[in-house]
């Protein structure tokens, strides 16, 4: 069996994960680039006399995902301290907040449909709907990732499990940042 000392080198999984993150950054960057080009083409934003979307549900999304990032961070801290109870609590709260985020997105879509911003009513609603779909789909992937952490209490000190926690967390925080950018550029301003 080939053994490679990784003392002086990152773990292959870390390198692979970094590359995957670059791919995801490029995916969302392409979406933001498209958004920028479409928006700067218009003289008024929102175009076609649409009103901005009510900020209620976007705020709920923002707060829930910010909190979830906080609790996920707390989870990994308590995992390091081998505190099963607290770690478990934080992990469950993270997961629930992720669900709250998805529900608030669903409410946002319903709300937009109610005020006439249905998917097919022009570029403004295309962007709002399309980009939130893509992001929400990734949140679902993130939630699945969180499920893979649930057996943490059997894996204290296991290096590959520590990496798993690190990577799921990074992915989750990344989605958090993407949402904040979306919130700022698409809803707030």
């Amino acid at each position, binding site marked *: 069996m*080939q053994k490679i000392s990784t003392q002086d080198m990152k773990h*292959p999984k870390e390198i692979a994960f970094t590359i995957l993150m670059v*791919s995801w950054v490029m*995916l969302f960057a*392409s979406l933001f680039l498209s958004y920028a080009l479409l928006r700067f083409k*218009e003289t008024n934003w929102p175009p076609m006399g649409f009103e901005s979307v009510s900020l209620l549900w976007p705020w709920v999304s923002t707060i829930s995902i910010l909190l979830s990032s906080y609790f996920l961070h707390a989870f990994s801290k308590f995992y390091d301290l081998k505190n099963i109870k607290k770690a478990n609590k934080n992990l469950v709260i993270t997961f629930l907040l992720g669900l709250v985020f998805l529900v608030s997105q669903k409410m946002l879509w319903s709300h937009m449909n109610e005020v006439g911003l249905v998917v097919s009513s022009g570029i*403004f609603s295309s962007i709002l709907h*399309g980009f939130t779909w893509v992001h929400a789909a990734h949140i679902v992937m993130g939630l699945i990732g969180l499920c893979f952490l649930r057996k943490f209490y059997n894996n204290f000190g296991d290096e590959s499990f520590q990496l798993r926690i690190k990577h799921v967390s990074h992915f989750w925080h990344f989605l958090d940042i993407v949402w904040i950018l979306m919130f700022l550029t698409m809803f707030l301003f």
Partner: protein
Amino acid sequence: MTYAHGKHAAPTTFLSKYVFSYDHKVIGKQFLWYGIFFLGIGGMMALLIRWTLAFPGEAFPVLGPLLFPYTDGVVPPDTYSMLFTLHGTIMIFFAITPILIGAFGNYCIPLMIGARDMAFPLFNMLSFHIAVISGVLLLASLFTPMGGAAGGWTSYPTLSTLVGSPGSGQTLWCLSIFVLGVSSTMGAVNYITTVICFRAPGMGYFDMPLTIWGLWLTAILNAIFLPVLGAGVMLLTFDRVFGTTFFLAGAAATSGSGDPILFQHVFWIFGHPEVYILILPAWGMVSDFLSFFARKPAFGAKATALSMTTITILSTLVYGHHMFTTQMSPLLTQTFMTLTMTISIPSAILFANWLGTLYKGSIRFDSPMLFSLGVVFVFGLGGLTGLYLGTVSTDLYLHDTYFVVGHFHYTMAASVLLGGFAGTYFWFPKMFGRMMDEKLAKIHFWITMIGLNGVFMGMMVVGFAGMHRRLYNPFVYEFLEKLIPINKFITYSALLMGVGQLPFVWNFVYSLYKGKKAPQNPWEVGTLEWTIPSPPIHYNFEEIPTVKCGPHEFGNPNLKDGRDFQYQTEELV
């Protein structure tokens, strides 16, 4: 701590050995078969296209009446659009990519860097299976009620939106490309990680064969830019399926509508790196083969690797040269023109190094070498024609003519195809443990070379004369009628080239079963894959080799016992 890798046991059943195999060598061969299968389909489509251009309104011989019974064997106009769309798509994404990157990447990377497998074998297997799903989606699109995609391999809106292509063919095309993007990204992650982490002890980056450099840079470009294409086809799918309007200009085209040009930006941000994704593996292989068969160290190998890297970086900055005619501001066109021209500097270094390697070499004209010399020739021609297209003033005339088609077939089709053949002839003994027949290989080379130059040179001539690409019957325009004879010549050349592939197919299949048994190192080169038996054992290396010198150590006067090369595992004499 230590990291063990390649922990899977030798497979025993048929399924685990040939279908669900984790072994990079098997996955490489799977990609090879996959690519050759699609190469055949894409090639048949090319012949249908060429027939239509040379003999408009005449029935395609033999197969025509079977394929198009309603028109008595004549290729109908909508089918013609479908044919050139799928020809391009299949050749780029389903033939070149699987063969050059999937097959050679998988097969060669672990063997040439002295590893026992890829970093993530399971990921690697999934990458192939996902590629199969993608291929099935693409082929399925042909059987939808309104036929396959017909908006060109670039699938520009509005041709590719519901307005231009109703029906599910184009949607399946988008999904197929998206799925393939996922597969290739997974492969790329594997390649990059493997090269970074699993080089044999002692092998620095500049001790890697240039083949590995090419494949590695390609993987990096893939990981960065495939997601951009993914985003583009995803938004296009949303437009088609859910009714968004990202790429739809409204009737008034004033406010609140999408923008078809946006797709061109997204497509070419990916698309220009993509052309280098396709050529870099071939460049790497040719850089190695020229040295191997000239029995000389590669001239300026380090500079070759660095100029490939420079080209990789610059290739991300020039995509605008595909969009000079989209009413871009002159400031932008001039910028993109200048950046495009900048690529000639590293390209010229690369090319000069090839010639430097050949200079005063004791060249052996074995088939891999012939094909590599072919690449040098056709790539030189193709690269030069790029300059005329990269210059705004000439491109305004040449854009969307057959000159562009000639250009990219020289750089991409011809160079990559010849590079792929060179690689196949070179590694066939290692892959299957048997030799291919040299005589047939040489016949194959010369017919292919004559055929393809006839085709692509002809394309540049008719393009320069003003013949537009993608027209069903260009000769409805009077000024193009004079070009019918040249178009006939191109078609005959294409037929010749098609026939020229028969010796290859025969040679390949025959040698697979009946070829002469291959020795361990038939070409007498020193890279790591030739230090082990042909074909290699399940784990490649009994013991992980230690690398002590570079891959191109030829003709060292200190070498003893009649050898003119040394293995990478030997101390430099």
